[in-house]
């Protein structure tokens, strides 16, 4: 089970993902984020993973896909609130080099110059 909530801070899309992100739920997360990107106002994305208890390489795939979309306009993707198992996946796969991991939302916003 996965639950997605979306919020904005200016042109920053804040996506809160709770539950489990795997192959089964990846398509839903992709659709949720793409629906926002289509509106043409999103510059950067912050991922709130505080409620995310599980993620595998299918989650990696869907995040990399959105990272590439943001790269078209030099947008950035940051994440915070990672539980140890998700943090381990980010670290071992090198995803943290593309999607920097921050301790909290304020730190993400500061990194984006807010």
């Amino acid at each position: 089970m996965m639950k997605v909530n979306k919020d904005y801070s200016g042109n920053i899309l804040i996506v809160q993902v709770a539950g489990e992100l795997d192959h089964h739920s990846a398509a839903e997360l992709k659709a949720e984020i793409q629906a926002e990107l289509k509106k043409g106002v999103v510059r950067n994305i912050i991922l709130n993973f505080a409620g995310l208890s599980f993620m595998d390489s299918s989650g990696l795939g869907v995040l990399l896909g959105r990272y590439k979309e943001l790269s078209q306009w030099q947008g950035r993707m940051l994440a915070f609130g990672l539980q140890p198992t998700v943090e381990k996946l980010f670290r071992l796969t090198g995803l943290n080099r593309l999607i920097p991991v921050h301790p909290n939302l304020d730190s993400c916003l500061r990194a984006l110059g807010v």
Partner: protein
Amino acid sequence: MEVNNYFTMTFPAYSRNESFARVAVASFAAQLDPTLEELNDIKTAVSEAVTNAIIHGYGEQGGEVVITTSLRADNTLEIIVKDTGAGIDDLDQAREPLYTSRPDLERSGMGFTVMEEFMDSVSIDTKPGQGTVVTMIKEISVREPGGHGED
């Protein structure tokens, strides 16, 4: 190595069974008293192997995934994930980080890499047209009684 306990589960290759499969294996593995990190490693590796079977083994055609989990006397866990689907044509290529045969599905190509990082050993036996068997071994740390503080 002597096997102390084992269980086998068979389920249709539906993506909605991925969560159940990894939780079922982790619940069975709990008998070896793993740490929370070890349990999460097992869940992640099982999820990768099952997802591969569903997407790459069977694809649209469907089929059955069989998982056998054995608890061995040396406090290791052996997990065998089997499909009788397409098999892998070029195994060396499939094991390379970031390689995927399905970029159209936004696969990251990191499945085997994740299995290898999270488990102690991963071996793959595959025959094109006949299917794939992934065997993963995880050594579970033996803890002193009362030494559960790290959880």
